[in-house]
Structure formats: C-alpha cells, structure tokens
C-alpha cells in the first residue's frame, strides 16, 4: 500500500465522528469489500449496508416461475447466465427443472442464445434477460442480431432494471451511496449530478483495494460537511458522458417501464422493455406467458436486506435452512448477493 492509501485506511480505522451509514449498491463491491476484509478495519462508527445492486437478487420469484413455465409448458430452450440457475422459484429452480428434463443452457453472452436459436429452428429459444445498464446493451445487440438475421424463434424474458430511480427510493436508507463504477461507465455521471441537486449523495467507486478505500474515505470526509455531494473516484474508467454507443443501442431498442424489485416493490420508471419495433422478441407476449405471481418463502427477509433494513444474519432463515447449498432467497444464491457474501466470509 502506498502512503496515500495508508492514510485513507488510518482515517477510516480511527474515524470518531457521528455514526454513518454508507450503502454499497453494487454486488461486486459487496463481494470485494468482504474479500479484502474492509469491514473489519472500519471504525465502528461507519456502517456499510449492502444495497440492491445484484441483478439476480432483485429479480422476483415470479420471474423464475415464468422461466420454468416456458421450459415445460412452451417446451422452450431456456438460455441464461449461470447465477440464475440456482435461484429458487415457487415450485423449483431452473437447476431443478433441468434435472427433470427441461432444456436449460448456461451461456456467456446473449448472442450465444441467438446462435442456439439458429441451430434449433424448430424450438423456441428464450434468453433470461436480467441486469443493469452493464448487461442490458448485450440484450439489445442480441435482438438486433436476431432481427437482422430473421431469427424468428428467439426472444427475451426481460427483467432489466435501471438504477437512478432506485437511489431515490432508497435515499432514506443511507447517508451516501458508493455508486457502481461499471454501471456509471455506461451511463455517465449526469444523473448522479442531478441526484446531488435532489439531496442524494454518493461517490462513483472502482473495484480495487485502493479504489474502495479511497472512495470510502472521500465519502466519510464529505459527509462531515453536511451538504449533498457527488464525486467521481473512478475517473480512469468512468467519463462524464459515459459510453455513448451503448446508450444509443439501448435507446434504439428499449423504452422505460415500471419494474418490480424484490423487497422494494414497484419503482416507477426503473425498468426497460422492448419498444414497438422489437416487441416481436418479447417472450411474454410472443409465447403468451400468464401473469404468474411467485410466492417467496414468507420468512425470507431478502427484501429488508436489500433495503438495508436488516443484516443477513438477522434473518431467521440465515445459516439455518438458508445457506449457499440450499438457498431460500436470491441474496444467498448469487455470488454477489449480500447473504451469500456474509455467509461465505463471516464465519471465522
């Protein structure tokens, strides 16, 4: 560690001002903070809360149920990123559906799913599209590719979300946010400046030990001034204008919509769906998916955890019937989920 970092670390270790609550929004931040042991060096006056920035965690049970429905009732090939496979649905997870004969395939890019559709022209192929602005452009590229190449048997089951309105909804949960650097690399920082004017404070944060310690100390120092602030502590990657190409791709194919967040309910304008030019690739419309309301385990407190309302170990299921091998809630499944991180790293 260089001198500047040692100074930042010392400041965070010895801080003795008013108690602060800082929410790290991004699941990768949650994971790195645990991996590096950052919570352990923080003064007890600084509390870190893990927010709703893991796309798997904020996806509702009903979404998994719809995917299982598509696999069995529409005989579709389901393509997904790995993390969703083990998320419990009301009846079963996609992993369990696969063991029972459903055709569930793990892919690494959305375009892989389009290729699978081309190789299986007699089957419907559905990609499970969840995620924030970091993964959404890939879904946009995939539908454009499918349209250009006339791949009629490909569609998206969409539950993509956007962050800005979620900060508004969460602003009373924390004194400041560590903004997710990768998302801001796409979206730029204009919305964050706007949030500052509305009284929401935060710092764009990178992912290395140095970047995390710096962002945290900048946040704590700014919080001493008692006025809203915004700083970009990840300038090597995040530019004010963001990634214009990706933004254009999204605006060409998507329109905003209301979205349901697990634990947070419906947040107006916090989701995206395909616009009229691409609606033929919307799996729910195309394959007539009924409006399935999932039934999460009533004792699971994922929702409170995502709002910073309780810590994972305060949930009655945590570590008892809910663990990474047998997850009950999505926060325990995803490697970026708060419960999973707590469980994996906290048992010294």
């Amino acid at each position, binding site marked *: 560690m260089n001198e500047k970092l040692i100074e930042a670390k010392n400041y965070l270790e010895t801080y003795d001002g008013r108690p602060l609550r800082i929410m790290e929004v991004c699941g990768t931040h949650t994971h790195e903070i645990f991996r*590096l042991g950052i919570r*352990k060096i923080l003064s007890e006056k600084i509390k870190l809360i893990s927010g709703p920035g893991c796309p798997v965690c904020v996806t509702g049970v009903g979404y998994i149920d719809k995917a299982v429905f598509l696999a069995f009732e529409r005989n579709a090939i389901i393509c997904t990123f790995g993390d969703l496979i*083990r998320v419990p649905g009301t009846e079963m997870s996609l992993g369990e559906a696969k*063991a029972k004969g459903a055709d569930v395939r793990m892919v690494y890019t959305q375009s892989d799913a389009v290729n699978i559709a081309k190789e299986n022209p007699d089957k419907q192929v559905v990609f499970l599209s969840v995620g924030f602005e970091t993964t959404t452009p890939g879904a946009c590229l995939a539908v454009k590719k499918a349209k250009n190449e006339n791949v009629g048997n490909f569609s998206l089951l969409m539950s993509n979300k956007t962050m800005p309105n979620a900060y508004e909804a969460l602003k009373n949960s924390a004194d400041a946010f560590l903004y997710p650097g990768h998302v801001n690399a796409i979206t730029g920082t204009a919305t964050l400046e706007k949030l500052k004017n509305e009284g929401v404070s935060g710092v764009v944060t990178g992912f290395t*030990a140095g970047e995390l310690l710096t962002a945290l100390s900048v946040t704590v120092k700014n919080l001493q001034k008692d006025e809203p602030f915004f700083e970009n502590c990840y300038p090597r990657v995040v530019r004010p204008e963001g990634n214009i190409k990706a933004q254009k791709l999204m605006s060409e194919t998507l329109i905003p919509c209301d979205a349901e967040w697990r634990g947070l309910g419906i947040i107006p304008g916090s989701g995206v769906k395909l616009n009229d030019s691409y609606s033929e690739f919307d799996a729910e419309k195309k394959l007539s998916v009924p409006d399935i309301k999932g039934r999460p385990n009533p004792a699971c407190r994922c929702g409170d955890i995502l709002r910073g309302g309780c810590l994972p170990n305060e949930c009655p299921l945590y570590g008892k019937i809910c663990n*990474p*091998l047998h997850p009950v809630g999505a926060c325990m499944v995803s490697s970026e989920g708060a419960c999973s991180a707590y469980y994996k790293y906290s*048992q*010294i």
Partner: protein
Amino acid sequence: MEEFITLNHGAGGKQTSELIDKVFKKHFENPCLTSDDASVLSVGNEKIAFTTDGFIVSPYKFNGGNIGKLSICGTVNDLACMGAEPLYIATAFVIEEGFPISELEEITSYMEKTAAEAGIKFAAGDTKVAGKGQVDKIFITTTGIGRITQRVNLSGANAKPGDKVIVTRDIGRHGSAILIARNEFGIDSDIKSDCAPLWGTVKDMLSVSENIHTIRDSTRGGVGTVLYEIAGQSNAGIVLDEDKIPVDGKVSGLCGMLGLNPLYLACEGTLVVICPPEDADKLIETLHKGEYSENAAVIGEVVSDYPGKVIMNTEIGSQTLLPEPQGELLPRIC
C-alpha cells in the same frame, strides 16, 4: 422430494463430499478407503498405493495436453502424493461412435509419452464403444498401482500448527486453459495447462525431507478446495498470505475478467505440500531446480486457531475467511 444428481455433485467441493458420504460411503465404507488421493494397502511386506480416476474433460484437447495425457498424469500424481513410485496402470476407454481413429491415436501417443516419463507401465485395458450421442466423444478411466519404498507418512490428516504451506508452482492454469479452449468467451490467450506427471517432483522432495506431512494434487476445485480438505482432515486452520500466492499474470487477468478466484481453478500439475517449518527452505530450493516447479512458493502456514477453516491475510492488511468452495464452478475440467 426426490433428489437428483446435479452438476454440482461433480464439482469436487462440498456437495461432492456430501454425495460420497450419503451414497458411496454408506455402501462401500471399510478401512481401506480414506480421503487421500490414493489408498495405501499392504501386500505381504510391501506397501502399495492404489487409485482410480475417470476423465471426461471437454474439450478433449487443450493448450498443454489432451484427455490422454491428463488421464495418465491424474493417476500418476495421485500415487505420487502418497510417496509411491508409479508402477502399473490400467486404462478403460468409452468412445462415441463416429470418433476419428486418428484422434484416438493422437490421444494414445500422448499417453505413451507421458507414461514413459512417469515410469509407469500399461498393464491392462478395456475398450467400449457407445452409440452416437450416448457419450460425449471420449471418456477414459485409469487405475494405477505404485510402490512405497521410502519411510513416509503422508496424509491430509497430518498437518500441524506451525507447518508451512507450499504450492509447487503458479496456480489455476489448467482451469484457465480449459476455459480458453472452450472458446465460449471469445477470449484469446495462450495460457498453457500445467498438466504434468509429478513423480519426479515428489521424488526430489522426498530425497531432501523425510518429514513432509502432506502432499496433495490440487485438481478439481483448485488449491482452495485442497486446503479446506486438509484443514478439515487435520482439524487445524490454514492462514494464507494473499501476496505470496504465485499466479501468472495471464491467469489473474482472465480471472479478473470473469470474476473467478484462481484459488478455485483446477490445476493438473500443482501440488500442495505441508511440511515442518525447518524443512520449508530446502524444499523450496529443491523445487526451484525442478522442471515443473520453478516458481514454487511458501504461501502460508498451519495454525491451531480456526480449525477447519482457511483464512487470508489480504493486501490491505486485514484478515478474511477464504470462502469454502461450493457448487459447480466449471463442469468437466478433468
């Protein structure tokens, strides 16, 4: 509810152990079976090591080897980890209808070369052909016997507080090479698998130290999984220094991109060695002269605290638990 086999049961982590306990041990358990890489048996006055391993790697060719080389190295290394000189090997092939014979010959020529290097002789074999689609191209099972002549007592249960933890080379290469060979990410890199027969490496180590407590081949699940197994078997804790773990720059780059931890990536030519502190320096010196262990390093030590756990001293001077590997990281790497 009826339970089914999932890919997680084959990942070599916690669920694999659970399956072994619940199903296999229940019916097979007897004093010959241990949790080590090979069992040590007595035949007359001789001590032999005995092991078997199935190989289903996909794709069956990768940078640094193929399924044939892997199938010899896997068994040779399991024997070597018990301090046994590899003697005889049996091979069983399950081949898919339509598999090119030229490819089969390439695989067997690698096996010939690797077996010659390890000094093990082919002593039995079997061939089965399955219909198209009933097996994915080619699966190989090898079974090996080795002879233990030196005075050694190697077991995962022997780690003691104060012991040093050594890895014999940079970690995570095989898993990385397989990921690249699958070409699923569109990433181009020349990371070579560490796949190698390690009897020579073990022999060199045993020639300078009779006091090694544990030698383990870190295959599926990587070095992290092996360390957890040792911590559990020995009922001790293991503390690692993050900055001392040798990882090739290309491997750490790949891991950074894909969100993987090199400690959980498979190796096929990397040993974890636990030894008393006074023997660590001479072992490292010996390893540095070896063909497959030029960048061997002491990466941590065994402690009496935290029994069964692996702890990491992190780069910011904090301490954290190394999470216990669980579930499917990457299927069919060996």
